[in-house]
């Protein structure tokens, strides 16, 4: 958007002086320059990432910490088994180091490939405050402004509430996660929560377009504008402005504390929810808990040019690392979301169906769902189901 308007303003300046000829050149240049940008404005209609050679995509893989490496290994195993035409470029990020070299390498790799699959990188509280969260750095550098999470009740998972189907769209780059804090007076810390009109309009636009694409009827904005009148007030105003352009979709708003209460008592009333960063964090974790836990829900971070896929609740799971008890569902489904993004829909649906069959029909659950299965058992079951469907697979 910014580049487009910049070129237009340049052509407006040049035209009066040089008349038709150079102005035309600028216009032509302007069109070529901005066409790439315009195409990537649409939700879910991003042009396929350029890292495709010989029919195979290259995707950056960031193992992260805790259960990330083992779960991503399982994802690679399933992909290799299903003969998915994706090659992974593994980039390790050491969260114990204070330098930002590792994460910058990862960011460069994602810029090169366009798509990434990642585990959560731990942010140690013992590090000095100048060391920023690596995950946050990744999201802000790549401008992955929309975090999308789809919470759906699974028939095979016993939960208190059934028939939940909520899409949560969370602003991913600003808000309370701007990492702007200062202590002018010792013992008094001021934290800045940044809400901008541009980013709020952008995320609202994304939410409404996604709702329209998926055939959803209602978008709810979650805010605390009664207290944060300027910040959340601006966010709400932007949502209302965008809502007026979508008369087929109902728009309403709800204060965040009421939202969490309604979520634990009547979650079926929600359809699509859009909110700033911190409320998104809280609400998405509540919703993940409602449908069965952090091991079940995948999440995606979309930007204008890049997409990064991970588990929705971004847990490191240090206490269950390398014990073969972690639930691979979230990471496998994140891999399927990535395959859909790469337009490899057949592979995505076959793996997704295998995961759901394991979860719902075979009822092979890991410890977090109250079952006895191990991670490898679940992954083996998924691969067996894929093989039984008769598609081309490698050796089990």
């Amino acid at each position, binding site marked *: 958007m910014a580049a487009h308007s910049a070129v237009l303003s340049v052509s407006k300046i040049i035209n009066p002086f040089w008349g038709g000829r150079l102005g035309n050149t600028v216009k032509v240049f302007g069109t070529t320059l901005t066409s790439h940008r315009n195409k990537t404005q649409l939700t879910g209609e991003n042009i396929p990432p350029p890292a495709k050679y010989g029919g195979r995509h290259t995707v950056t893989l960031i193992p992260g910490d805790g259960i990330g490496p083992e779960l991503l290994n399982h994802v690679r195993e399933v992909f290799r088994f299903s003969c998915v035409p994706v090659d992974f470029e593994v980039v390790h990020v050491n969260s114990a180091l204070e330098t930002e070299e590792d994460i910058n390498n990862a960011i460069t790799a994602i810029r090169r490939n366009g798509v990434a699959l990642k585990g959560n990188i731990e942010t140690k509280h013992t590090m000095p405050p100048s060391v920023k969260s690596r995950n946050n750095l990744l999201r802000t550098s790549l401008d992955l402004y929309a975090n999308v999470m789809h919470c759906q009740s699974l028939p095979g998972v016993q939960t208190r509430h059934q028939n939940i189907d909520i899409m949560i769209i969370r602003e991913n780059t600003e808000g309370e996660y701007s990492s702007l804090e200062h202590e002018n007076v010792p013992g008094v810390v001021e934290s800045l929560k940044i809400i901008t009109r541009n980013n709020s309009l952008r995320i609202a636009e994304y939410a409404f377009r996604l709702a329209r694409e998926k055939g959803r009827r209602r978008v709810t904005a979650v805010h605390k504008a009664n207290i944060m009148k300027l910040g959340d007030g601006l966010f709400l105003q932007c949502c209302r402005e965008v809502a007026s352009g979508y008369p087929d979709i109902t728009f309403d708003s709800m204060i*965040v504390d009421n939202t*969490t209460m309604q*979520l*634990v*008592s009547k979650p079926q009333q929600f359809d699509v929810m859009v909110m700033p960063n911190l*409320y998104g964090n809280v609400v998405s974790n509540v919703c993940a808990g409602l449908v069965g836990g952090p091991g079940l829900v995948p999440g995606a971070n979309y930007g204008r040019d890049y997409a990064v896929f991970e588990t929705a609740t971004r847990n490191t799971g240090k206490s269950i690392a390398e014990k073969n008890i972690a639930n691979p569902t979230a990471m496998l489904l994140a891999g399927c979301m990535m395959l859909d993004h790469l337009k490899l829909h057949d592979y995505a649906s076959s793996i997704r169906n295998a995961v759901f069959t394991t979860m719902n029909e075979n009822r092979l659950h890991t410890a977090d769902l109250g079952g006895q299965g191990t991670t490898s058992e679940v992954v083996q079951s998924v691969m067996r189901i894929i093989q039984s469907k008769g598609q081309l697979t490698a050796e089990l």
Partner: protein
Amino acid sequence: MVQVPTQFDVLVMPNLYGDILSDLCAGLVGGLGVTPSGKIGANGAAIFESVHGTAPDIVGLDLANQTAMLLSTIMMLRHISLHDYRNKIRTACLDTIRDKKVLTEDLRGKSKLYLLSCAKNAVLMSRYCSYSSFSTDLRSYLAMLA
């Protein structure tokens, strides 16, 4: 909190998280109709109130659940060290809800406001009052109304 809320005992947190989590927990235990609160100041000044709003849509209809207000009063009695009265009212209140015979609409019952308070008083009196015949009359009156 949504998966295993029983693991938590006492939670302390800053303002915004407290706002969100307190409403979340209220939703877990039955809603705003049963949640009391107290605001304690540094010099001993304290305000006790229920956390629900003014609910203008049900004013005057005898539908409100006054448990939250009553439990807040119980918190106040504890704060001012009137423990005897506090224990009596608390037992009466919790017993009424445990019995499940007289509950307001938000707790999926069908009773009106005054019946709930009467029921509580009946339990109170039957336990602590020597005028037991009076409480028996009151209970038969309630049975007739319900």
